[in-house]
């Protein structure tokens, strides 16, 4: 149980809020690089700020205010030039630093004028890594964009994005809640399939550890012991708003009642022949069944979404009744409160990386090790999200065949 005041602290992420200030100290993934193969601009909303993400013809990415500072036109309908984004209303041009480069009519009337030098637009840095576009909305100097070791694993990578109509923090609490897996993903899945057999192995013990980039949760189930990797290595609640279990799931606040779920996945491939992927596809995963209007319940993350959305647009933690399975959740909340205080005191919060020497393939614990042999005789079904496009599935099959052939496994 939390007081309403504490709950607000966790949930509100707008500019100037304690949690908003904390989350703004980290690079946040907001889109896929491949989304900009077919479009130059994309309207985005991040932590309550309406922005436009664009790629100009020189290849610079920019993230600027949604509205032109001239007459507030929508820059999502602007057009890109060699350098910058031009408003479609009167042609004002801005670059990725927020500088105004051109005001056509003003400069015609006053060639010597300096009006454009006095006008700027809100702009945030954007960087591309691992097929994702990352934004930093905090104060300068920005920390380094983490260079996670998993980004370099051999395998077929894909990105899936969903919009979840609820607050981000109830999504992130799920990242340190081991017991939900037994019920939401195992037992409920059996019920959904009409199976009436024995229930999934029950959790018997939980453990939590901390490292430089988050928490590790560990579990023992009725069918495992403390010798298993689920206990010895565990899973990662990656600070501040991600789950890492071999794939990544970021929960980026769109605003206080909606969350961008960004999944970064990798399919292990057979053999050890070099495999190079030219582009990482990014697709949008539906959350509702169009026929029934109900939430999709067939895939792991969709089941998570049902739980999160079911908690309400903003979970009312004044009404909850926490138990032993919630020790990780309480630990996460406490650390969030501590780190909000650290930011308010002018300190760097947990997990920010500023030393380039430390930001080279940064290690994250992973059950099974980083370079795992591909299981089975072919690509595994994609169990995480409904709606994987046929072309992505086809590319995975081709990659599998290519690697199997190269290793003589066919």
């Amino acid at each position, binding site marked *: 149980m939390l007081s309403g005041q504490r709950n607000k602290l966790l949930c509100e992420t707008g500019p100037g809020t304690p949690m908003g200030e904390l989350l703004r100290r980290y690079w946040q993934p907001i889109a896929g690089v491949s989304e900009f193969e077919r479009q130059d601009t994309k309207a985005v909303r991040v932590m309550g700020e309406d922005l436009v993400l664009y790629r100009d013809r020189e290849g610079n990415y920019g993230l600027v205010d949604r509205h032109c500072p001239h007459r507030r036109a929508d820059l999502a309908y602007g057009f890109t030039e060699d350098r910058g984004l031009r408003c479609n209303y009167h042609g004002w041009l801005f670059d990725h630093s927020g500088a105004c480069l051109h005001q056509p009519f003003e400069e015609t009337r006053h060639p010597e004028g300096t009006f454009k030098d006095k006008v700027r637009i809100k702009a945030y840095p954007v960087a591309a890594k691992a097929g994702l576009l990352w934004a930093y909305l905090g104060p300068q100097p920005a920390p380094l964009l983490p260079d996670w070791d998993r980004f370099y694993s051999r395998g077929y990578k894909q990105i899936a994005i969903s919009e979840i109509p609820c607050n981000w923090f109830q999504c992130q609490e799920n990242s340190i809640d081991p017991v939900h897996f037994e019920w939401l993903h195992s037992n409920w899945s059996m019920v959904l399939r009409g199976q009436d057999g024995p229930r999934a192995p029950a959790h018997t013990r939980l453990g939590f550890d901390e490292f430089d980039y988050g928490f590790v949760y560990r579990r023992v189930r009725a069918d495992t012991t403390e*010798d298993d990797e689920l206990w010895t290595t565990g899973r990662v609640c990656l600070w501040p708003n991600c789950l890492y279990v071999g794939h990544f799931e970021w929960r980026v606040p769109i605003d206080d009642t909606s969350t961008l779920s960004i999944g970064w996945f990798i399919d292990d491939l057979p053999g050890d022949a070099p495999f190079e992927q030219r582009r990482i596809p990014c697709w949008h995963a539906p959350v509702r069944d169009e026929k029934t209007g109900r939430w999709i319940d067939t895939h792991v993350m969709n089941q998570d979404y049902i739980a999160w959305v079911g908690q309400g647009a903003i979970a009312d933690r004044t009404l909850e009744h926490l138990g032993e399975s919630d020790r990780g959740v309480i630990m996460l909340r406490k650390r969030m409160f501590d780190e909000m205080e650290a930011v308010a005191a002018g300190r760097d919060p947990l997990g920010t990386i500023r030393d380039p020497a430390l930001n080279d393939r940064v290690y*994250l614990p992973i059950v099974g090790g980083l370079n795992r042999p591909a299981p089975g005789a072919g690509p595994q079904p994609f169990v995480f999200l409904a709606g994987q496009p046929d072309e992505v599935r086809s590319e995975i099959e081709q990659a599998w065949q290519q690697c199997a052939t190269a290793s003589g496994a066919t």
Partner: protein
Amino acid sequence: MRHRVRRDLTVSPPPDAYELAEARGYGLTASDLRQWRPLSAIEIHWARKHGLSPGVARRWAREGVGILDAVRAVKLCIRPQQVRPWAAAGFLPGDAVEAAEAGMTLAEATAWRQAGFILPDAALLVRDGWTLDDATVARFAGVDRYAPAGR
């Protein structure tokens, strides 16, 4: 899933390749694993980061206190044997540390537990100024969002 043999204080098989890779990830060597046995790589990492010696970390481990709580306990100048009454009362040994941070006695913690609060939940409420009576009412009636300051 791989299956690892867990080491204890009486046996010392060398770490396998997987353990070594994990240790390297935490900036440790095989020698570190041996020196800190039976702690895991992540525990050694945390202990070293916070200045605990292998001996101190082991003493806490023998009491059933994980490394996170051991670090906090040392900062609070708690001695390992002080957690025993808590364990005997059915709390996790590490709960003694959580309670100490919140200024709760064993009797108080027991009362909160009897009212249905697990200790970390109770400790946070105590820090926020809640009394057990008020928290118990709120737990079952919903919390007044506009309660007096301090809640």
